[in-house]
């Protein structure tokens, strides 16, 4: 079946370090991948979108890569801050079909 998989274990890092979150997809060829932030009890908030013909995209402290050979996207937060603590969702879209990953919880310690 088509899947978007993210690390289910929480990621704990120290403030100021770079957080790297991984998203893998199987049996699926998304035309683009999106990354969202979700805080408890709230709706997802859009962060970045990268298309299959793009290798990398940046926005302020955020960077996302898309490797169609590895079937993987990496999401980086540089100079992380405690306010970056949240769950980050990887979302794949191909045609009209959109699949959400389960999310990775990030904790940034001061």
């Amino acid at each position: 079946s088509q899947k978007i998989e993210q690390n289910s274990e929480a990621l704990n890092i120290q403030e100021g370090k770079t957080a790297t979150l991984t998203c893998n997809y199987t049996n699926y060829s998304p035309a683009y991948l999106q990354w969202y932030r979700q805080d408890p009890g709230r709706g997802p908030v859009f962060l970045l979108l990268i298309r299959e013909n793009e290798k990398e995209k940046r926005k302020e402290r955020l960077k996302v890569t898309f490797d169609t050979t590895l079937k993987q996207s990496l999401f980086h937060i540089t100079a992380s801050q405690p306010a970056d603590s949240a769950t980050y969702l990887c979302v794949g879209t191909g045609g009209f079909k959109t699949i959400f990953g389960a999310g990775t919880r990030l904790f940034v310690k001061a």
Partner: protein
Amino acid sequence: EPEVTQTPSHQVTQMGQEVILRCVPISNHLYFYWYRQILGQKVEFLVSFYNNEISEKSEIFDDQFSVERPDGSNFTLKIRSTKLEDSAMYFCASRGQGGQNYGYTFGSGTRLTVV
């Protein structure tokens, strides 16, 4: 910044009752969606809506569910005869014409509790 507005924020209903969840998408957006998230689980797609009709629906979106855009601004999700397992956060989302360049804008959700 434009927002997607959902009401109510929390709805408690008895099993078997009908509920209507309401959403006001961003005014110039053309694509509308309903998602649900059961507590502690991943976000699941329910239905997409474009040009006044359903463009895709998931296997979750069975005959007990329906969507409407009654007046050009509201977008509603009706659950006809609620079951305990329908308890979840329901999120409405919308996106604009250049959809492939932009993500979805989600509302804050309606927490539905079926008792």
